[in-house]
């Protein structure tokens, strides 16, 4: 399993999750965990996804998500899960 963490930060509006999930489904990316919170009026969402069945490379996925982010006015970042695991788990 190749786990990637997708984070979305921006002003809350209708359809952010729908748009991202559609993209993920179209690219055979499975969502393992999803959670969201509001910090200082900003919408923060995190998804842990499995990209092992995705036909595209990490760079392509990251770039396309970034593109979707600019279209809907939020910042979408994709990062490999290891950086968070290393930092927060012994």
């Amino acid at each position: 399993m190749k786990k990637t963490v997708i984070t979305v930060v921006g002003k809350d509006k209708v359809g952010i999750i729908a748009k991202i999930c559609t993209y993920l489904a179209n690219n055979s990316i499975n969502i393992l965990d999803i959670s969201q919170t509001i910090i200082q009026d900003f919408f923060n969402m995190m998804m842990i996804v499995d990209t092992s069945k995705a036909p595209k490379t990490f760079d392509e996925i990251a770039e396309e998500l970034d593109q979707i982010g600019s279209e809907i006015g939020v910042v979408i970042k994709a990062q490999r899960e290891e950086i968070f695991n290393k930092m927060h788990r012994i």
Partner: protein
Amino acid sequence: MINIHEVIETNKMIEQENLDVRTITLGINLLDCAGSDLSEVNQRIYNKITTVAKNLVAAGNKIQREFGIPIVNKRIAVTPISVIGASCCKTIEDYVTIAETLDRAAHEVGVNFIGGYSALVNKAMTASDELLIRSVPKALSRTNRVCSSVNVGSTKTGIDMNAVKLLGEIILETAELTKEHDSIGCAKLVVFCNAPDDNPFMAGAFHGITEGDAVINVGVSGPGVVKKALESVRGADFETLCETIKRTAFKITRVGQLVALQASKLLNIPFGIVDLSLAPTPAVGDSVAEILEEIGLEYAGAPGTTAALALLNDQVKKGGVMASSFVGGLSGAFIPVSEDQGMINAVEVGALSIEKLEAMTCVCSVGLDMIAVPGDTKASTISGIIADEMAIGMINQKTTAVRIIPVIGKSVGDRVEFGGLLGHAPIMRVNEFSCEKFINRGGRIPAPIHSFKN
């Protein structure tokens, strides 16, 4: 599984608190490039560097994209050139051709600095070592990316005072040859005591002769992250303060370890060490001096600074050491003046002097670093400053270094602009009383009594 708060914490460190991997430094052994024909040696050096480091920059960029952590510098360290050039360099110009080759190779593979134009003369200089040292001013004035270092002492051998004397003159000559650019050549020359073989940070990085053929060393950084963490424990006691620094250092270093292992895998080159350092940049919020202020000092340099720095340095090591399988290099807090906005401010308000900085170097990882002094400072005075710093390293069994820049044409009150990561600095006052007779004695200072541990 990782939760959203942990993800947000990590990304906040990266986006708002300047957490980054300061450098992935690829150490390359050049011993197999030595020979008696200078042009062949130059060709072999060029070929080896451009082959081994071919994918370094691409690998760094890939790690940066996939983990979302900035990798600020990709750099190369090579075997000290005085060893490689010993059998083929007969003149200063011969050595300079090797510097130019290193510069070309660095340019070709896209790294911003290459270290190792160095000599290790802890006890005494060979003819070749001396020739390399004498070639440093020309080498640094004719290249952009080459960094030079000279190790003039160690706890085991004492201090080679002939080299210390010579380097005072060499630093002034380097300043003179690069005076059109605020004597910037001196920013690429470090004089060491107890230099580590695996330091990934410039300008003092070289690939020690005890190292393998190639190795990946990583330097992490994150003074802004420590500063931010300390904001949440204002007024708390020292135990809480130390625990907070330790926990933060652990997190920062874990990222360094991850990046080092990834780079090692991508390049198929063994992982050497992670250097646990707090390395500042001139950016606001990326300053070691600001951590000292957060600990409770009005400015770096105020009474209490040495104690605050001592605990900071120690906690960084304690937190970092558990986060990495191999630690090394300089590991600790860096206190360069021109590269740290808080240090610059402290000098400008009169809180920080060279003498206080010298005291601070007794308890942190490096030495007098990126200090701009008047251009008319005497060579013997520079040698005296170097000797003091080397003595601190020798007696305390630690690495110390001097990177001092006599800026030709400028005096106390002026400012100097180096640009980029090297930053800007006010010219600092130097004690002008003479040490000429001391420096002119020649010979070496014997190793201290506690070096005899056998």
